């Protein structure tokens, strides 16, 4: 490897040729501030906060975009550099609302942090308010364009990672803004509600539709029986909201916190994740054995579903008809559980904690009412859950752990791994293998489908039946896979798609500022949890066996179809396209 040596603030560095000044400075413990820079994205160099002095170069250089040159002498802490950075901050703040205390990103904002670090106490520039309208059109993601600093990070993640390309800059110069086409709302364009733009945004310009007040209202209503479910990806990330590392928060402590908040019953989505495996596994075998449409593609991720509806409507018949675990849970809570507990389903208020902003859209889809009511009343993200815990004054780190309620709180390791990319596939293979072959799996760890690689493939031998599978995370990778299938270059029996990078652990409802490095830590925590559980195959969950005996009778049976399966809707790519109307 070719290296170059340079001096940064008097420290000698030797780095690979092509390394930026920003990265080189990190190796010697020098922190250069950034704002438009994002570790998982391309270099934009439009905010100029990272400027440094390079000896022999007249103008200050952007550290994120300048490669270290041979024998370069770089200074990151001079009067000129500090002045320039402060001026950049003052200019941005002159065009940014001054309501930090009320902002959803208060104390968790890259701009606020920099203003603090650079001691911006006054502003030499006249303040300009744009008074642009808030975009509240989407049930998942809201926007306050007044707060946008035009860094372009949301544009990049939407276009390059998700290939939904919802956002673009419009106008130029001082009047530039970031918005969907024609300044329409996110709810009016082909937005999949994945919320990856929320993580990309350094400030409070893009955020979830915060509905946690509705849940307080329900809890305070004595007539309501308030139950909750929680996705497997919540536990590993909630820890981060309370200063712990991914996965450090014990499940029982979250259960105890939810009871203190006031939930009448605390259940787990993992219960219906196990159920999903039974239904989806059987659906796959049914399709393979009866010449059904292949590949079958998973349907757990509502961001992916909406992406498929907008961008690949010709693949809608490939989607498994299984509802997502959240919606199966919703349908069962107001039927199976209501019956068992002798509660009028009209009095049940069903709350779902998800790492996901797209789930907020999913729960209000018109077909998601098979119990006769809206199956899931409201979806809150990991961040909203953290808000409720703080508001309730609960010391979650030190609370005594408690157990989930029966029966919908019982789950296996197969359900836990739903939270990571490849997890649904692995869980399905654990069950399908044993159901088809009648043999016990020697090694239940299908490591080929794990990890952050964009597209993973494997072939599984089910006693002579070679099943080809693929796993994609991010809708951009799903696009690559579907294009290859369309072109006849690839064939698979079964595909798992998750809309978000890393799967649900990287969802748009997870703690702000999720990066790929953080995602990997959450994935590790998910597989640790799976490995530590006594039962790790969905078909061995005794509560699921009981559910079939008492209520559903058989997989893909009449009741299953009524409650657990769904259909999809072709959607237009163009909000104003006349042909669709």
């Amino acid at each position, binding site marked *: 490897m070719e290296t170059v040596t340079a001096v940064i603030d008097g420290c000698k560095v030797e780095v690979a040729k092509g390394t930026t000044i920003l990265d080189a400075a990190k190796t010697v413990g020098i922190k250069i501030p950034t704002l438009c820079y994002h570790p998982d994205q391309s270099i934009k160099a439009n905010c100029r906060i990272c400027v440094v002095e390079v000896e022999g170069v007249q103008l200050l250089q952007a550290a994120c975009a300048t490669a270290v040159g041979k024998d370069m002498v770089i200074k990151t802490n001079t009067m000129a550099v500090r002045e320039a950075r402060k001026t950049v901050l003052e200019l941005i703040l002159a065009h940014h609302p001054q309501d930090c205390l009320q902002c959803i990103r208060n104390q968790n904002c890259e701009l606020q942090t920099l203003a603090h670090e650079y001691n911006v106490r006054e502003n030499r520039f006249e303040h300009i308010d744009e008074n642009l309208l808030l975009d509240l059109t989407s049930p998942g993601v809201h926007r306050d364009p007044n707060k946008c600093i035009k860094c372009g990070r949301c544009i990049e993640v939407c*276009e390059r990672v998700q290939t939904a*390309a*919802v*956002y*673009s*800059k*419009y*106008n*130029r*110069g001082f009047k530039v803004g970031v918005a*969907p*086409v*024609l300044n329409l709302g996110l709810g009016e*364009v082909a937005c999949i509600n994945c919320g990856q733009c929320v993580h990309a945004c350094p400030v409070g310009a893009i955020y979830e539709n915060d509905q946690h007040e509705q849940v307080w209202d329900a809890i305070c209503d004595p007539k309501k029986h308030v139950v909750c479910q929680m996705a497997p990806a919540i536990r590993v990330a909630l820890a981060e909201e309370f200063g712990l590392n991914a996965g450090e928060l014990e499940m029982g402590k979250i259960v105890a916190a939810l009871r203190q908040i006031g939930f009448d019953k605390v259940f787990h989505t993992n219960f219906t994740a196990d159920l999903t495996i039974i239904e989806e596994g059987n659906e796959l075998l049914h399709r393979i054995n009866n010449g059904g449409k292949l590949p079958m593609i998973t349907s757990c991720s509502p961001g992916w579903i909406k992406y498929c509806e907008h961008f690949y409507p010709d693949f809608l018949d490939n989607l498994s008809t299984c509802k997502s675990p959240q919606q199966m849970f919703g349908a069962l809570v107001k039927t199976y559980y209501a019956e068992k507990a002798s509660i009028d389903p009209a009095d049940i208020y069903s709350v779902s904690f998800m790492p996901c902003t797209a789930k907020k859209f999913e729960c209000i889809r018109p077909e998601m009412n098979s119990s006769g009511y809206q199956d899931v009343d409201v979806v809150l993200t990991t961040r909203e859950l953290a808000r409720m815990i703080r508001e309730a004054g609960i010391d979650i780190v030190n609370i005594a752990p408690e157990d989930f309620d029966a029966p919908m709180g019982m789950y296996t390791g197969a359900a836990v791994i739903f939270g990571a990319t490849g997890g649904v596939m692995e869980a399905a293979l654990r069950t399908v293998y044993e159901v088809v072959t009648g043999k016990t799996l020697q090694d239940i760890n299908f490591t080929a489908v794990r990890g952050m690689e964009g597209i993973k493939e494997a072939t599984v031998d089910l006693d002579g039946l070679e099943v080809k599978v693929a796993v994609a995370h991010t809708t951009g990778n799903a696009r690559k896979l579907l294009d290859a299938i369309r072109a006849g270059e690839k064939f698979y029996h079964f595909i798992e798609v998750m809309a978000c990078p890393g799967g649900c652990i990287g969802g748009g409802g997870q703690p702000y500022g999720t990066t790929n490095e953080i995602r990997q830590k959450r994935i590790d925590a998910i597989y640790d949890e799976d490995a530590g559980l006594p039962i790790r195959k969905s078909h061995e969950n005794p509560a699921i066996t009981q559910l079939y005996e008492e209520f559903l009778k058989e997989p893909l049976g009449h009741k299953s179809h009524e409650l657990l399966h769904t259909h999809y809707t072709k959607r237009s*790519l*163009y909000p*104003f*396209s*006349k042909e669709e109307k």
Partner: protein
Amino acid sequence: MVDSYTNVSVDKIIAEFKDVKSGLLPALHAIDEKYKVIPEEALVKLSQVFNIPVSQIYGVATFYAKFAVNQRGKNVIRFCESAPCHIAGAAELVAAFEKQLGIKAGETTLDGKFTLEFCQCVGMCQEAPVFTINQQPYFNVSIEEIPEILARF
């Protein structure tokens, strides 16, 4: 009034640039030339023909002062809003145009004849203040000359 567009006519214009390398800008110019606006239908068609997300077509169509996604008048008067023209007294000239036409910058006269708007530097700073009407630049214009200039259209 400018010609009103139809789906068919917009499609026809765009089709001419289908195989032109970097055909998006010439296509936008051709649509603008004919209709003084880039209609929604054109944004969709351009997106399909050039395989570029519609959000980005919108970005290009709003980046250049020459194009507009909202309907403009038959003749577009553009004032440079850069510093040299500002210093040379562009504001007084703009105010005079506003008074004469009875509209504010960014608006179109009721008869659809004129739109008044700002643009970036047109590269003729030596003659500041500069404005253009359609493609034609005007220099050293005094306030008294405005009625005569407008009467030519």
